[in-house]
Every structure is written in C-alpha cells, then in structure tokens.
C-alpha cells in the first residue's frame, strides 16, 4: 500500500514537473533586463552579467549645498537641463525662470551667478527657460520657451540677438515657436528642437536666418499597416487611430566634430530590437544617421524589458545624451533611471543606475552632462544634481580604449588584462587582449581570446595566420602523406595488373 502511494506520488510529481518549470519567475526578471545588481553589462547571449561599478557618487548637490536658500530662499524648481562649458556647469532652473552658473573644481561646487535677466532684450526676463548652450566665446544661448525665442547674450549678459519663429513657408505659421532643446556648433549655427515640430531640428545660421530642418524622422509604415488602414478601416476608425506622422526628437548634443547626437523616445517598442527605432542617432550635415553599430545588439539600452503598461516598465527611453572623448557616449534612460555608456563602435561599456531616492538613484532623471570623465545627472523631481566620478575599473576601461585608439596596442592590452582581473565577463577586454597578442604573432593565443570574446571575424583573421604558420611548419609531413596517398594505390594497381598479366599469360600457355 505504502509503495503504491509512493508510486502515485512520484507520478504526480512527474506530471507537475513541466508546470513548475514554467512557473520559474527568473524568466520575468530576465525580461526586465535587470538582475538585482546596480551595475551590469550584457554578454554575447544577451544575458545580464553583474559588473563592478564603473562610477561612484562623489557628491549630490541640491539648492542647499550651493547656497540658494541663503541667496533668495528660492529652491530649484523642476530644472530641465544641464550644460557644461570648461569648468562651468549651467543649470536651467526652468520653473524659477533663471539660469544658475556653478563652477566645479573637481571636488566642490561654487555658485558664481544667477542669470535671470538679459540686458537690453525685450522682454528682459525669461519665461520657462528649458535649455542653455554656451559657445566657445562664452556667449550664452537660452531656449526661452514661453517667450517663443532663443536668446543669445554675451558673457556679461548683454543681449546680442534672438532667434525667433521662422517666417518661412515651410514652418507652419499656425504653430507657436516653442524651443525646448538647443545646441550651438562651432560656427555659431543654432539647432533648435521645437515642441510640436516633427520635421527635425530647426536650423539657424549665426545671423539668425532660418535655413531649414535637419534630420527629419522618417515615417515608417509597413505594407500590412498601409493596406489595413487604406482599405479595411472605416472613416471613423481611421480618424480615431493615429496618423502616420514622423515623431519629435527628445534631445540633442553636438560633439567636438560638429555632429549632432539625437535621442528619440517615441517609437513602438517592437521596432527597437530590429534597430528600426534608432533611439540614438548621429546626424551628419545632411541629416543622415551615421552612428556606428558594430555590436551584436544595437545601442538601445536594455535588451529585455517587460511590455509597457505600468510606470516603471517598457523599453529604455533615452532622455538625454552626452558625448565624451573619443566618441564614447553616455545616454540617460528615464524609464529606469539608468546610464548606458557606449564606445565609438556602439559596444556597451557599462550600464548602471536605478530608480529610487537613495544616493546614486534617480526619481526622474532628465539631463546628463560630463566634464572630463565625470558625469552630472539632473533629477527634475528631487531638484538635485548627482555627480559621478569614475572608479578605478571605470577609468581603466576609458584608458584601455584611449590607448588603443592612440595605437598603443600593447599598453592597451595590459590595461585590458587589469580590467579582466576585475570583471571576467567583459568581452571587450578579451577582444582587446586578443588584438594585441595577434600583433605579437601569438596566433593560437589570439584565437583563444577571440573565441572568449565571441568575435568570429577576428578569430578568422587569427586562424588564417595560424593555418599558414602550421602548413609552413608541417609542409614535409603534408607532402609525404599526400605522396603516400597518391602513390600507394598506384603501386597496388601496378602490382595487381602485373599479377593479372602473369595469370593471363599462364592461361594462354595452358590453352595452347
């Protein structure tokens, strides 16, 4: 009886097995692209690998620490943007209608001045300044949102000129000019991201003339969608569903070479993986996207996510981007308050951050800027700026990258070895070491490292050299074996034929 019960119990367990396997909840964790770790990277298979922290919080500054309460008692109110010019950090204190200029000496912040007026402008005050930019001559540009202008002033705050609504016919005159984000290039050209403008960035020459749009988002419609909308929907349905309109950008940044890095947050989450959404773009002067994507996954932030619906879910949406030295770029995700660093090939260097209200977490991150390798992240709800400085590990990644780009391959490999000691799951380190020892003619070693980095093409290059070397070393044996294979059947054939002839000869003798 007992045995039978046991047998039944085992059977039951067996039957329940598939059910319990499906109920494993680690799967949903993986879908959200996040382990419980603060810092991570994705490995070749797209699995989250915990990583050492590339950055640590050096300080968090808010209205109190920079002495705003002593000044006029007005704390920061929903600041929207940061801008760094040399040692100065500008903060657009949007809902207080002013700009704060802070100086950072690497440790401490000092409030230099509060910019709330432009001398000689009409009106002189700001109305919700959303963004700021400073050019090489320290002229300050402010996106003065509800005054419908981008105002330019010199460093002593004297009004120079204003960029206003274009009178061109390509600009819909029924729409207000609402400058939300601005960027200025070396020639003084101003690029404006206007709210409700979906034709791309509005471009002005230095003399305030409007010269058209740049980088319009392409309208994406697939065949099935088109047929469905065109032939099967009723008029009411068509009116209710959204029209095929290109979307607005979210933010922009001009790098040292004058290319615009733009982020885009309005897309269908299903377009992300196939790189149709292109949340990060690098625009050339014609508006074409020239961002390099040489990794297995395009730079889209998190690779896995739970479908949208609740607040903290959905794909990564980059609200700001900043470009460091050597075309490394850091993008800020507002969905989960994470920072993603990519190198110039579009390979993920690190990802870290989370939502929350402890140090190093953000409630509503809105803007990111850099000074050297330090990062500043602005939180619009906490009204604070978190300052991150690279850890030893983070600095080594940067150094290895830089030495490699400078052509110091051996030095770079040494640094990558140190990185590997801290993080054995870092594909870039394996690739870096592989490249260096390939140059030192250690083909087999290079092959091993490239295999660990899952870099098939580089492996192929190393293997080609290895094969050449191997053939040169063993050429004697190869020739010998080939000779044996060719000659032995020949000899056997000869012998057989000779025997056959002998037999035939004998037989013919017998017959006679």
């Amino acid at each position: 009886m007992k045995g039978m019960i046991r047998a039944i119990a085992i059977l039951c367990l067996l039957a329940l097995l598939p059910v319990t396997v499906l109920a494993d909840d680690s799967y949903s964790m993986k879908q959200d692209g996040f382990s419980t770790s603060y810092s991570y990277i994705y490995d070749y298979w797209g699995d989250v690998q915990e990583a050492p922290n590339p950055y640590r919080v050096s300080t968090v500054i808010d209205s109190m620490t920079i002495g705003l309460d002593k000044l006029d008692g007005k704390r920061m109110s929903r600041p929207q943007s940061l801008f760094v010019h040399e040692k100065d950090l500008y903060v657009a204190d949007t809902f207080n209608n002013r700009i704060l200029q802070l100086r950072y000496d690497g440790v401490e912040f000092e409030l230099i001045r509060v910019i709330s007026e432009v001398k000689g402008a009409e009106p002189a005050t700001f109305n919700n300044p959303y963004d700021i930019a400073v050019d090489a001559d320290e002229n300050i540009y402010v996106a003065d949102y509800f005054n419908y202008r981008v105002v330019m002033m010199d460093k002593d705050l004297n009004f120079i000129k204003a960029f206003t609504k274009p009178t061109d016919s390509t600009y819909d005159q029924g729409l207000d000019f609402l400058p939300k984000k601005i960027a200025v290039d070396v020639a003084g050209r101003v690029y404006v991201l206007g709210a409700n403008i979906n034709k791309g960035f509005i471009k002005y020459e230095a003399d305030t003339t409007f010269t058209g749009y740049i980088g319009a988002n392409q309208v994406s419609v697939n065949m099935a969608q088109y047929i469905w909308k065109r032939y099967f929907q009723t008029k009411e349905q068509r009116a209710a569903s959204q029209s095929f309109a290109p979307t607005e950008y979210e933010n922009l940044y001009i790098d040292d070479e004058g290319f615009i890095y733009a982020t885009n947050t309005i897309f269908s989450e299903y377009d992300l993986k196939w790189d149709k959404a292109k949340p990060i773009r690098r625009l050339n002067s014609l508006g074409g996207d020239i961002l390099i994507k040489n990794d297995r996954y395009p730079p889209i932030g998190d690779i896995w996510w739970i479908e949208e619906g609740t607040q903290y879910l959905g794909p990564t949406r980059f609200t700001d981007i900043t470009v460091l030295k050597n075309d490394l770029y850091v993008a800020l995700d507002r969905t989960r308050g994470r920072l993603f660093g990519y190198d110039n090939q579009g390979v993920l260097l690190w990802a870290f951050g989370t939502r929350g209200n402890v140090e190093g977490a953000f409630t509503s991150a809105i803007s990111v800027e850099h000074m050297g390798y330090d990062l500043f992240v602005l939180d619009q709800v906490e009204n604070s700026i978190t300052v991150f400085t690279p850890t030893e590990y983070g600095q080594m990644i940067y150094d290895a990258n830089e030495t490699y780009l400078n052509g110091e391959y051996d030095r770079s490999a040494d640094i990558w070895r140190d990185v590997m000691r801290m993080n054995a799951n870092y594909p870039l380190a394996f690739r870096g070491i592989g490249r260096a020892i390939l140059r030192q003619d250690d083909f087999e070693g290079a092959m091993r490292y490239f295999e660990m980095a899952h870099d098939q093409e580089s492996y192929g290059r190393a293997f080609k050299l290895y094969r050449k070397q191997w053939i040169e070393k063993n050429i004697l044996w190869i020739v010998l074996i080939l000779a044996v294979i060719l000659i032995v059947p020949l000899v056997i054939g000869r012998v057989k034929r000779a025997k056959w002839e002998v037999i035939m000869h004998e037989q013919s003798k017998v017959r006679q």
Partner: protein
Amino acid sequence: MSRAKSASDSVKALRAEKRKESWSRYLDSLRYSLHVITHPFDGFWDLIHEKKGTLAAAHTFLILFLVVRVMKLILTSFQFINAPIQHINIFEEAGSLALPFLVLCVANWAMTTLFEGKGRFRDIYMAMCYALVPYILIQLPMVIISNGLTFEEGSIFSIMLSVSVIWCCFLVFIGLMQVHDYGPGKTLIFLVVTVVGAMVIIFLVLTFFSLLSDAIAYFVSLYREIVYRLY
C-alpha cells in the same frame, strides 16, 4: 548423445548462417542508400517494393543523423557556428529533431491511409530515413573540413550545408511520391496536409498532458483533503 550434440551443432550453425545472412543483408541495405540518393525514382521504388531496404538501416540513418546534428553543434569551427556550448544538452538537441521527425511520419501515415496512399507506416519511416542520407554524407565531412577553413572561405561551408538540406527535401518529396504511388501534385498537397496533421497531433498531446496533470492534481488534493479529515 552425439546425435543431440550434432543437432544442437546444426542449429547453432543454422543460426550463425542466418545471422551472417541478415548481417550481409543489412550491409547491402546500407550500401543501397547510395543508389537511392543518386537514383531516387527507381531507388525508392525498389527500396519498398523489392525489399531492398531494411528497418535496421533506417534506424541507423536516423541515429546517424542525430549524431551528426549534435556533432555539428559541438565540433564545427567556432568561426561558423557559435553555439552556447555551456547550455547545450545533447539529448535535448537530438530529441528536438527526432520527435518532430516521428510525429511527421505518423501524421503522413495517418493522412495518406485515408486517401489511398499505398505506403505502410514502416515504408514511410524507411523512405524518410533514407532521405536523410545526403545530410549525413555532406555535413559530417563539412564539420571536419570547417576546422581548416577561414572566415572568408565560409561561403563554401554554407553552400554545402544548403546543398545537403535541399537534396534531403527533394528526396523526401520523391520518396513519399514513390511510397504512396502518388503524382507530384498530390504529394505536394499531402506534404502540406502532413504539416497540419503534425500540428494537430502536437496540440492533442499537449492537451492530453495538461488535462492529465489537472486530473492528477485533483486526485492529489482529494487525497490530501481526506488525509486531513481523518487525522
């Protein structure tokens, strides 16, 4: 005594003879696969109707096919196949091919018997297994050769792989045509019907197991309830 001994001897001899005969028949049927893949029309006809094929050979080909498949994942040069070796379970890999293969055989048999197909299940299975031979003959050497090819020469590898697969598909088509004595059009239709049938079978099996696990869960909870009441 001696007679009994001689009788048992002769039985032994007979058995040995028989074993030898079946062994040579098995080898012949293995060798015959080369004829089948090069002359599919005659080959498949004779395979079934002239009893040139054996089930043992068919089993051999199926097993070899699975082995080659697993070897391909593990032994191909890293440049061409980058499989997550740490996650590969060879039985899972083999099973994920063998099961659909058998389900397709069953589905094909089930559908064609209803529509005057001449083939028995055994014939269908044999034809399908013999159709796998090009896969084995091409992919196994390619797996070995791949370790001497570089990334740029990879096109040879991929072309040979696709040749083997296309050849197999062609053989399956001809094989089923000959086994059932169908025309090409009817064979094509029944290939589609077979796939649908296989889906139905999988659906039924899944439903059955899900219902079974529900039923067992019911009895388990019933048993637990009774136990709690009694003690």
